[in-house]
């Protein structure tokens, strides 16, 4: 545990060492938030309702989804692929600490630093542009979805990096995943605005569990008839992705070889 705390601290210090990089990264994220926020403000300029959402609830959804996405998707696992490619992953494998726990500690540090900035950005939007923000609802349901979302994201990110065991083209699948996540997880709009068949199909995939359902819980739009099914499915995805990640890790390790280290 002490080792993991140290890993956490080192990751935070890495960010402190490359402050400008991080600030520029957050600026980019803030610009993306602004586009989405203003787009929805414009759509709701002359109306108070959109589908089953009021103006306040949909703007709150966009803001909360952005905040949750910052935490859930924040990850340092992308570097693993490069460590596999240049062989430096050996250094990590030799350390007396679990690989998965090591990266989870790094991810948590990444998530918390990003979250602290994202909260400030959200407050700027609320304060300067008078964005309506409904008070958080159903915290208990949110917590379950949120923790499972973090785990799902962690395992998927690990698997995307493990592709490096088999091919040097590790960046392209991650790019595709990022594109899919931003649309299928409800970054641009709440997914239940989609036609029913598409919405129910998406509920069977891991995407809505990343930040759509946690954000829905916070604005109080959880469907009571579906919530148990959704919670069960989120646990299913955590378990299935965990098993798949471990299996990929073991297979990759078995055939991994590198010269010169």
């Amino acid at each position, binding site marked *: 545990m002490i080792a993991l705390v140290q890993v956490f601290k080192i990751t935070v210090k890495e960010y402190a060492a490359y402050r400008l*990089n991080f600030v520029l990264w957050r600026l980019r994220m803030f610009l993306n938030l602004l*586009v989405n926020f203003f*787009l929805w403000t414009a759509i709701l300029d002359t109306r108070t309702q959109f589908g089953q959402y009021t103006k306040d609830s949909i703007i709150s959804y966009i803001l909360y989804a952005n905040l949750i996405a910052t935490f859930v998707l924040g990850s340092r696992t992308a570097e693993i692929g490069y460590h596999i490619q240049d062989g430096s992953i050996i250094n990590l494998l030799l350390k007396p600490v679990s690989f998965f726990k090591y990266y989870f500690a790094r991810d948590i540090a990444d998530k918390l630093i990003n979250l602290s900035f994202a909260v400030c950005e959200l407050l700027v939007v609320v304060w300067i542009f008078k964005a309506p923000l409904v008070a958080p609802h159903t915290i208990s349901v949110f917590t379950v979805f949120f923790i499972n979302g973090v785990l799902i994201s962690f395992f998927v990110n690990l698997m995307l990096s493990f592709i490096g065991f088999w091919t040097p083209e590790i960046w*392209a699948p991650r790019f*595709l995943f990022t594109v899919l996540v931003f649309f299928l997880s409800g970054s641009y*709009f709440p997914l239940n605005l989609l036609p029913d068949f598409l919405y129910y199909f998406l509920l069977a995939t891991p995407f809505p569990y990343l930040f759509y359902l946690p954000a829905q819980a916070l604005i109080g739009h959880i469907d009571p008839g579906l919530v148990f099914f959704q919670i069960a499915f989120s646990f299913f995805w955590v378990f299935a992705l965990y098993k798949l990640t471990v299996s990929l890790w073991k297979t990759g390790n078995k055939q991994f070889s590198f010269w010169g280290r």
Partner: protein
Amino acid sequence: MMKTYIKNATIFYLLSRNALKITLQGRMGVIFFLLGKIIRVLFIFAFLALVFNRTRLVKGYNFEQILVFFLTFNIIDTLGQILYRQVYRFRPLVVSGGFDMVLLKPIHPFIRILLGGVDFLDVLLVIPYFFVTFFIFAKMEISSFHMFLYLLLIINSMVMVTGFHISILALGIATTEVDHTIMIYRDLSAMGRFPMNIYKEPVRGFFTYIIPVSLMMNVPAQAILGLATPWFILFSLLISLGLLCLSLLFWDYALKRYQSWGG
């Protein structure tokens, strides 16, 4: 003079051929990137269709008009990526000292560091963008004058895009920071994906007069929809010329102070 053009064109052709060969080295990467980019555009289309399924107008624009803005943004953005992809690879050249070798060669450095890495993946994407855009124009019965004006203003936008990329290169020489600057440029220009009217002041003013994203991404669409006054079009032409001149001055300034970072 003519000889220089032919020499530059030949070098550009050779660099582009190399860029194509490099691209084709990673077949899986090509497929995933293309797929990702196509999906991203299709998803935004779907999102806009979803919105306009429930509302007729957004800030006074109908679905077709918003699509014209979105497609125009995509055309300008993609053309910029096709031509100036090499800017994304400039930082390693500066920090490794490899830029010295570029400067020593008897060709203008822009041929190597600005135009030297044509992105052929984006060529595949820009063709359908043009087709869809002109299909919408045909449906809207746009006059040939407006069509000419649109193409002229696309070229004008490309002058601005060039100015921004030259500034990023100059900033790269001065500070060695390129990677985030180019991505911030991309995110800033993405603010022009939709009409600037959707933003509130002071954001709208900032992206029209301070960083002219609106002039770069919106004016061609505004002109073809008959929403831009002649004075505003003239203003955008002057701004793009001014931006290009400023970027070239910045480039000269950065180059004079360049002391070779790496090596």
